[in-house]
């Protein structure tokens, strides 16, 4: 899908809508916008490995949680916030590259199970390594003595920055040899290897990219909330949520994951507000409907109409 101008226009318009919320809306809306940006970044990251490469990765929460912990530990040792986020990004990217070298040898169901196990293992290790991580009690971060509106606005822009970075990386990858190689692997890995694509290196690159922005988002989230603990940082539910967002928007497209994240977060807020007891079940229903009626994601609707229009015009 290489449609230059409309793509950039849609992207910039979307980011502007989110970025201008502090001008006209209350703190709740700004907070929702920041959450949309954060999940947008997570879903866009997942897209590298899950969308382009077609590997069913469920390790997003592991990278997010590790990023949160590395960032938090750095900050507690007096490292300034921005630098702590950068360190978290680099450390988790290195971790993902190493881990990818091991578990990317698995395929299909085995890879899915292995990547879920990584989330659980990270949670277990973090909860039992009390001397460093505070164990089950969690960690407190240095509080930022800013007024709430200013704090909210700051983290909105931080999350938007991470989202923008992940989108730019997606566009670059999509138009490069790497993106082409990843799509080949998606279609037929053996054939891709046969025509000379270094599949191992490409997959590791995709996996590392999918971890990097999650780590930054995790570290920023930790600074934002001021407190993290193992159960909240490493949630299988969160991992699956991110995958569902990407599928909802359209896996393997550039803007799909972000669009899916926005739609999902808005739905979730709506259900939380109106059906407190049943919000989880309603999200379950949304997932089931999505799988049956919208397997190509929201973007496929637009494409279908576009294609239909073209066919109609030709006749």
């Amino acid at each position, binding site marked *: 899908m290489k449609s230059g101008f409309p793509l950039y226009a849609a992207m910039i318009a979307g980011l502007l809508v989110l970025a201008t919320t502090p001008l006209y809306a209350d703190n709740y809306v700004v907070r929702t916008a920041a959450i949309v940006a954060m999940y947008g970044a997570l879903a866009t990251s997942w897209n590298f490995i*899950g969308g382009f490469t*077609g590997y*069913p990765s*469920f390790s997003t929460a592991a990278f997010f949680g590790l990023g949160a912990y590395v960032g938090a530990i750095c900050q507690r040792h007096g490292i300034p916030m921005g630098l702590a986020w950068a360190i978290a990004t680099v450390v988790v990217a290195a971790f993902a590259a190493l881990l990818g070298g*091991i*578990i990317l*040898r*698995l*395929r*299909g*169901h*085995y890879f*899915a*199970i*292995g990547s*879920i*196990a*990584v989330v*659980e*293992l990270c949670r*277990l*290790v973090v*909860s*039992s390594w009390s001397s460093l991580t505070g164990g089950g009690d969690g960690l407190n971060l240095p509080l930022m003595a800013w007024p709430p509106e200013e704090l909210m606005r700051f983290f909105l822009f931080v999350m938007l920055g991470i989202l923008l970075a992940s989108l730019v990386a997606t566009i670059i990858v999509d138009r490069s040899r790497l993106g082409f190689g990843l799509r080949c692997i998606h279609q037929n890995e053996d054939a891709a290897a046969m025509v000379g694509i270094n599949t191992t290196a490409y997959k590791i690159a995709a996996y590392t990219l999918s971890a990097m922005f999650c780590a930054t988002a995790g570290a920023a989230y930790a600074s934002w909330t001021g407190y993290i603990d193992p159960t909240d940082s490493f949630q*299988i539910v969160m991992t*699956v949520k991110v*995958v*569902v967002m990407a*599928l909802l928007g359209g896996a393997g497209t550039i803007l799909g994951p972000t669009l899916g994240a926005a739609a999902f977060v808005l739905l979730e807020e709506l259900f939380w507000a109106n059906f407190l*007891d*049943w*919000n*989880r*079940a309603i*999200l*379950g*229903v*949304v*997932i*089931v409907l*999505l*799988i*049956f009626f919208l*397997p190509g994601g929201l973007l496929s609707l637009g494409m279908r109409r576009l294609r239909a229009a073209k066919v109609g015009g030709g006749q």
Partner: protein
Amino acid sequence: MAIYLQILSNGLMLGALYACLAVGFSLVWGVLNVINMLHGSFIILGGYLTFFAWHLYGIHPVVMLPLVAALMFALGFALQKLVINRVVSAPVLTTLTLTFGLDMILYNAMTYWFTATPRRITLDLGAVHLGSIVLPVDRLVGTGLALAMTLLLYAVMRGSSIGRAIVAVRMDRSAAELMGIRTDRIYAITFGIGALMAGVAGVVFATVFPITTNVTGIWLGKAFVVCVVGGLGSVPGALVGGLVLGLVESFAGHWFGPQQAITAGFVLMLVLLLTRPTGLVGVRGYE
């Protein structure tokens, strides 16, 4: 020495429960190629049915066993027939996400109706002393039931025509279809059996462990590990995987503390995934 014998027997008893817990999950994965995220909730649902039958009407868990088995089979059969069969040949991402969505619905319904308070049936049957080893009778009965049901499933798979048809579909779907096997029906039956075995595990668990919706993920995780350790889609595989996991957890818990027991299980699984993805008794080619 005595302590090790105790740990060994604890591990074996736990292992039999794990085998019963995972065998249905393993069958569904092996035959349908679906990772059933509902499995943990199925177990807890079986446990809740048993608990409330006992608590409200005084029905003994052993009496509830066939009833829960029948109910869970019907639920599993209907779910597969009406919902999952429609996407059963889609990639793992689709089927896993779908069963996760279904699990969210079941989980939410159970939390709403039963609340998350841990509940347990205490039968107080005393304990058997074998030399220095202490074996609580309720656990022994649970282990016996779990083993009996797992072996019964094995007999059904080996001996009945339905069982042979399931194995045939697992080996080669198209060939089975050409032989006149209705695969969609076999899929529904297999999923029904998966839910049935989960329900049976739930009946046994209700007398041994606290039943609460909070632990669905933990039991699902055990099913993952047992499957990968033993190998997919076969009853002996689940049995071996369950016993190995039970022993590993018992000994790891003794040496490194109870928290590390779960970690040891996951580490074992990751190592086996990488070195022997077909499992200890698995057959190649069932990826």
